[in-house]
């Protein structure tokens, strides 16, 4: 068996040690959803109906200081009458560990189709809102956001 040179041995050992070392240090990350999983979640929620961009407006800050509590507002241009109103609004993400965020159930008693909440965003990604109108149609809006991370992530108290 040919003698491994000292340099080659160290390189090989270093590579193994580095990969072992890295594995020990890296935190186990939860599986992230993918854009296709988001599409699947949308289909599961609203069925096979066609979704047209428009009517619903999703507002999110473009640059987010902390992904733990991101304010979002969803509004739909609708008279909110018995004949014409928003039945529901659904929100989805592409890269959070799972794609669902929230579903709001509205109706003519809401008076106005405008809701706000705070959500978690794991990474820079696209957020999609889909509204369902009383006539059975679906409309969507999508926003691309950037999430910055804190310099020193904390674990616990």
């Amino acid at each position, binding site marked *: 068996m040919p003698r491994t040179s000292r340099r080659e041995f160290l390189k090989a050992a270093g590579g193994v040690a580095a990969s072992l070392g890295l594995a020990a240090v890296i935190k186990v990350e939860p599986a992230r959803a993918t854009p296709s999983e988001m599409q699947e979640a949308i289909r599961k929620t609203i069925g096979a109906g066609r979704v047209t961009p428009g009517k619903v407006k999703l507002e999110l800050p473009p640059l987010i*200081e902390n992904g*733990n509590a991101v*304010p979002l507002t969803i509004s739909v241009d609708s008279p909110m009458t018995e004949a014409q109103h928003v039945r529901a609004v659904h929100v989805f993400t592409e890269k959070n560990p799972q794609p669902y965020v929230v579903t709001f159930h509205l109706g003519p008693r809401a008076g106005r189709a405008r809701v706000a909440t705070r959500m978690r965003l794991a990474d820079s990604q696209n957020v999609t809102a889909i509204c369902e109108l009383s006539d059975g149609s679906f409309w969507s809006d999508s926003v691309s956001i950037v999430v*910055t991370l804190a310099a*020193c*992530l904390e674990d616990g108290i």
Partner: protein
Amino acid sequence: MRPLIGLVGVFVLAAAAIAGEISPSERKSGYDFMARETRAMQDDDTANPGMLWVLEGTTLWTRATGAAGRACADCHGDARASMKGVAARYPAFDAAKGRPVNLEQRINACRVDRQQASPLAYESRELLALSAFVARQSRGMPIAATIDDRTRPFLEAGGATYERRQGQLNLACSQCHDTNWGRQLAGNVIPQAHPTGYPLYRLEWQSLGSLQRRLRGCLTGIRAEPYEYGAPELVDLELYLMWRARGMPMDAPAVRP
């Protein structure tokens, strides 16, 4: 000659920067470094998550507790009057202990001595609720910790901790917060570290927390061994930070990223 003068000028400037103190006109609360949306979260009492703890504190204030069966309200009455300005002057000297204590320690001293109840654990829900409730009564008031012959040695000890390099990263608080405030550290802007809003709701914690929690977090961040909750080093540092922020208005419970 000219290049030499320029060089001397640089040294003088550098020395001034190291000597530290941010001039009073340049002092800014952490609020001023936040995004508009985070500021809106703080400004609206119906949206500020810190108010959930204040709400709980309002209930605890009137709840009789301990072997003495006394509520805070039994001695202190309406907190809006009796606690007005109190948080703004803590840490304050405690004659029995012969040293300054912070607000949380003062609350626990009352529990043990006056209510004959057990002290509340640091960062426990109840202690945070009571300190948030008390601190809320100082909203808008100028920070005014008393510095006199009794407290001066502790102020100086706190200042020494602030200026001392610590941890594996070998950083002193002053290097970030006096010399490099306003600059980016990874994704965030470095604030000046004035504790105007404590206890505050930190988005990173997803909870309300005390100034000591934040200080311990910073120490961990520079890879130093954090002092225990209630340690004299932390209380002295709190005193120094409140002195450094003297005159700035309290805005507890604040919201920070």
